[in-house]
């Protein structure tokens, strides 16, 4: 592989990794404060894609309006799922919420099949993201450049919320001690809702970019990115937002480079995530920059 090809692959890895990272953050934030693996997260992403599809394709709205609208409505969906399905189980054994999450996942997938139909819908790539940039023999789609940039902007905004606002402070405190924060006047339920909203909005962004990259959507499309983003979250150290992004980037890069360097193993690309998952669980269960979270 020459330099130009390598550069091209690295950009592709960054793009794919950004998507995994965006999605992984939702897993990691929810896990961080509720110790719940929200198995419905990938399906929330799918709903986000359909919202954007309706906005862009059906109503002909500009892509960024569709994206924003999808992020807002998907955030709302995340909050509704939490309040409706998980909140009644806050004091129940953790396994109950986990099983409920799997149930919500099936529910969304099947509702999707009933409402949207099983046939994939074409998701048009907006013109700005459909240019071919070329320099020095490197040819990349403009989407591949924009996704990491927009991801960085979104991540910066999220980190600003987490580390520079009182709500973010309450989130961080809540992740360590759900009881004591209440003594500070923090409404834990509100903070959990905000967490679901943020995580779901990011999943919508990741999903919409995903749909632009592989330009079609279907009701089961959330499963694979959801699983891989979960692996990314564990890789980075579950509960850690920056870790989730790093885990996503590593996973994206590893997949792309596997295919580039060992094309005969390309068929195992989707298995790679799970090999990495098993590896990290054996050698460093707290993840790359993870720390032990209290129960």
């Amino acid at each position, binding site marked *: 592989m020459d330099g130009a090809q390598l550069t091209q692959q690295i950009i592709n890895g960054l793009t794919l990794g950004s998507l995994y990272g965006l999605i992984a953050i939702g897993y990691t934030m929810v896990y961080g404060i509720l110790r719940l693996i929200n198995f419905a997260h990938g399906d929330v992403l799918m709903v986000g894609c359909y919202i954007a599809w309706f906005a862009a394709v059906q109503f002909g709205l500009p892509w960024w309006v569709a994206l924003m609208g999808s992020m807002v409505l998907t955030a709302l969906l995340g909050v509704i799922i939490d309040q409706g399905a998980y909140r009644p189980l806050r004091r129940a054994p953790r396994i109950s919420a986990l099983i409920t999450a799997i149930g919500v996942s099936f529910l969304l997938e099947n509702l999707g099949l009933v409402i949207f139909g099983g046939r994939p819908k074409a998701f048009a790539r907006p013109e700005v993201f459909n240019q071919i940039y070329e320099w020095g023999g490197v040819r990349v789609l403009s989407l591949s450049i924009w996704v990491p940039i927009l991801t960085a902007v979104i991540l910066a905004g999220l980190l600003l919320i987490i580390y520079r606002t*009182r709500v973010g402070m309450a989130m*961080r405190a809540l992740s360590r001690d759900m009881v*004591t*924060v209440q*003594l500070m*006047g923090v*409404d834990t339920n509100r903070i959990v809702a905000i967490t679901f909203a943020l995580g779901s909005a990011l999943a919508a962004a990741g999903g919409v970019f995903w749909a632009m990259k592989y330009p079609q959507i279907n009701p089961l499309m959330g499963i694979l990115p959801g699983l891989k983003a979960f692996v990314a979250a564990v890789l980075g150290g579950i509960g850690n937002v920056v870790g989730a992004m790093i885990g996503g980037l590593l996973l994206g890069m590893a997949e792309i480079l596997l295919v580039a360097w060992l094309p005969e193993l390309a068929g195992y690309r989707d298995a790679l995530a799970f090999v990495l998952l098993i590896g990290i669980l054996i050698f460093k269960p707290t993840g790359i920059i993870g720390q032990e979270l209290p129960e």
Partner: protein
Amino acid sequence: MLEVRDLQVNYGGITALRSVSLSVKQGEIVTLVGANGAGKSTLLGAVCGLVKPASGSIRFEGNDITGRKAHRLSRRGLILVPEGRRIFVNLSVTENLILGGYFRPKGAELDQDIEKVFSIFPRLAERRKQTAGTLSGGERQMLALGRGLMSRPKLLMLDEPSLGLSPLLVAEVFGVIEQIHAQGVTVLLVEQNAAAALGVADRGYVLETGKVVLEGGGAELAADGGVQRAYLGMD
């Protein structure tokens, strides 16, 4: 200011408090002493809304607050500094204090209060940017007290603030409690260090296996033979 009447609390099958009545008047320091497992923390937990009582009533400033949510009560000035400090170890010292004033508007007044806490506890001021997890036990207690003060409490409930501190620090903590009280904050103090607690208290209650067995003035209880034998280590 605080009126607890016939309070009963159960944890599953066991009764932790049975028919406990107690009151704290505006401006008082009241102490609650009792052995391990007597139900002291349970009582404070019930008052601040973390523990649901099975029966009985709790009134604060004339209003029935039985079963109210903890975050609402703390916004009304009913503040608990919990047993074991429970500071947020992953936040900085300053962030812990800001969180203490979580529901207060941002601005100069809040900043002034942070500086005030730092002037009471200069050791915290030197460590303001440090992660709270790096603090020593004594510093953590100071931070927990300071965090409690940030909400401008009307009634400050302290659960064993001297636990695990050296005698010198215990004296310092009790000094601060008197200082806080002198500024008009009403204090309900739970202590195993009964001698020190009765020394600063106007009145006291003795709790034994979930029941109030004795109550009276601070000096009066300190002079009581039973209290001396059981809690003051005298024969």
